[in-house]
């Protein structure tokens, strides 16, 4: 039971962290290596919220807005010029991540920031005491997933985004402003990343480099999922489950790399995600 809950909640956390990256990879067809930095930005938005005396939950909307706005600036200045150079876009976003990390360190200091948990304590679930917050993450992942699905399937922007994913030239020849679609997508993806950063604060220590550890795992999951959020959910379950199992039965250290290794092997056999990149 404990194992099952661990698997489900790990999958949920991975999904929340990766979904923003998926949106950007699908529409803009680049891997945003600054994703980790945006997680960090989000976490520090929560820090700011607490310092301003607000409810820690207020960090969520602040982070989404801040992340989206900064994402817009990044798309215009850094991503757009590198439209035709996807490998260089990886490098430039990595550089951006370094810059952001150092700026945060300069502003807030290198030390770990302590902020009150959004939620704490345990609850009894079917004969097991389990962390309330991790269970909450299950609902958070579902909520975000549903909202994401509704946006992409139901709104005009979502339809335009799907069109751009499938065939950008055709979309342009129908009069769709593909530049605007890309910008909007990047902003939403960045906002989601920052949001995820806030949600991570009770689970991990908040310091200027906290996001990097999540980057590789998120990135591998997105490569496996390609453009489908359902595939992402499945990937999070499968690989998250593997991570938990390996951590529990083999070693926690090896568990940490199981997502990356398994994803790399899967992609070698079935390079779905890479056929477009």
């Amino acid at each position, binding site marked *: 039971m404990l194992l099952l809950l661990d698997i489900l909640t790990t999958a949920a956390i991975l999904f929340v962290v990766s979904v923003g990256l998926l949106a950007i990879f699908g529409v803009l067809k680049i891997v945003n290596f600054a994703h980790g930095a945006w997680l960090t930005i989000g976490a520090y938005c929560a820090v700011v919220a607490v310092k301003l005396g607000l409810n820690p939950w207020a960090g969520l909307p602040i982070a989404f807005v801040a992340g989206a706005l900064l994402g817009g600036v990044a798309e215009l200045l850094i991503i757009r010029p590198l439209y035709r150079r*996807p490998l260089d876009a990886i490098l430039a976003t990595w550089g951006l991540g*370094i810059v952001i990390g150092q*700026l945060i360190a300069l502003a807030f200091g290198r030390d770990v920031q302590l902020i009150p948990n959004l939620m704490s304590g345990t609850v009894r679930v079917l004969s097991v005491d389990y962390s309330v917050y991790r269970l909450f993450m299950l609902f958070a992942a579902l909520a975000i997933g549903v909202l994401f699905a509704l946006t992409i399937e139901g709104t005009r922007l979502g339809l335009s985004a799907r069109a751009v994913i499938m065939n950008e030239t055709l979309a342009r020849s129908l009069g769709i402003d593909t530049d605007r679609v890309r910008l909007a997508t990047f902003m939403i993806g960045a906002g989601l990343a920052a949001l995820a950063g806030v949600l991570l604060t009770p689970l991990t220590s908040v310091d200027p480099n906290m996001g990097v550890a999540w980057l590789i795992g998120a990135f591998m999951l997105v490569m496996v999922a390609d453009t489908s959020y359902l595939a992402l959910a499945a990937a999070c379950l499968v690989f998250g489950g593997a991570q938990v199992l390996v951590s529990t039965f083999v070693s926690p250290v090896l568990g940490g790399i199981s997502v990356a290794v398994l994803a790399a092997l899967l992609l070698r056999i079935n*390079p779905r995600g890479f056929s477009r990149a």
Partner: protein
Amino acid sequence: MPEDTALLNGRPASTTALEWRAPAAAALVAALIVWISPLVLGAFAANVLTRSMLYATLAVTVDLLWGFTGILTFGQAAFFGVGAYATAMTMTSLGSTPAWMAAALALAIVLPMVLGLVVGWLSFYHGSTPLYASVISLVFPIVVTQLVYSGGLLTGSSSGLVGYDTLPLDLEGFFRLSGLVMVAVTLAAWVFVRSDAGKLLVAVRDNDVRCAYLGVSPRRVQITLTVALAGVAGVAGFLFAHASGVVAPENTGFLFGTQVVIWVALGGRGSLLGPVFATLAIDYLSASLSGDLPFLWQLVLGAAFVIIIIFLPDGVAGLARRASASIFRSSKQTRVPRIALAAPHSAVERSATLLKVSGLARSFGSLSVLENINLEIRPGELVSIVGPNGAGKTTLIRCLSDGSEPFKGVVEIGGKPMKGLTPDRVVALGVGRKFQVASIFESLTVAECLRLARTTSETPSGIGSAPRLSLPVASIEILRLTGLIDLIASPAGLLSHGMKQALELGMVLALEPRLILLDEPTAGLTKAERATIGTVLRHLTAEAGYAIILVEHDLDFVREISSRVVVLHQGRLVLDGAVDDVVNSETVRTIYSGGGHV
């Protein structure tokens, strides 16, 4: 017909010597500087620079992989770390006698090379993408780091290994050793990239498909390079373990790997010297800064990195190159080889069937592009394939040249089935393919492109550039008739469209393929250029006994040169026969004027 063996007088022998003198002299000077420096530098500087020079060696390997071959890799750090750990672990657990030291060195070379083979096999396969290779190069260091963390006492886990016996050298000794290794590796890399074999790297980067269709497996080049450079990184790691006396997981991690990429980018990818100087400068500066400055320094570096990637992809070296070019009006003479006539391959048996296609079918999902194609072609035939757009002509050519295409049916070349063979192996059966859009190596000169086309006949030298370029008669004829022979020192990217087509044809003919597949060779050419190509093609089949399959839209051209015409319509072979019969037939008229649709 050329009887003379030397059509173009190459440069005098003194130029070749000049090729050696300049870099050798520079290396000698650098070695001297390395030797003298410990006498003037303080202990701190010497210590830091010893490490920096080993990092610079690593940067050279990354530049070879990324700048020259186009493989963005974060994994060289892992090979470096494996070498370092292998050394430290041997010293710690097995002993530090000279025999064990030698064993450690051997291990530090062999183990990374074995890992390089695994990484190479994972990253480079028919159909792999550069992004995937980069992904693997990211995952690999992470795996290595985690393995180190979980190694317990054997690897020292997060504390690393320290206190083992090292080579009996003092600070000056290690400085000189590291420096000389750096100079040696840089010199070797410099010589290699300027040699004929070194051009293969650029060829793979520019156009790996064309490489495959010249019989050179790009995957083999990439894997071989990865393995070799893994060994070099291992040596650097060995020296690092000895010089610093401590190895830690950070020496294997992907953060270190990204740092090396940053140094190479800032220094200038593809310039070798740029990365070396950038690494030395940045690493030394990073170590020298104290207080809060290191963090500001990281910020500046990160910002510089982003700016360089976007605005100055060639890095500082690129700037320097452009500045010096404008100042010195640089006469960067590329050696021009002398073109000579190559002895032809064995004569083709005229009667044997060269190409046999039985029941070929190809569909994409539910869409059937080719259906039940049966065709037999003998040496000496010039067969034109005509048909409206979407009839399946290019797909047919693809199925005949790339055995990894999932088609049904049988295709035999010279009696050998080619299903499942990658393009480079199909080329080995005697097939040459010319693409509709001229597929050449834009960064290389015409001569270098032609030389690469001869790779399967004459292994290119890894040290220098051969003074003579042997080409078969057909290639030379193309060069002469099109005037390309006067442009053999010109970069291929600067040629006009017609010249690029001619170059590609020259390259394909240099393979001396028995069966040549041409996809719309006259597209975009002037009338005169068409006539030239037509002459050459006719001559190849009539006298040299080649077989040519030609996909064409220009029916006048088809009528002039073909011996046989095959009509493809909606994926099926509709007509196959002598030129006049087919061209004048009712069926063809209807197809081309719009009627006759299903």
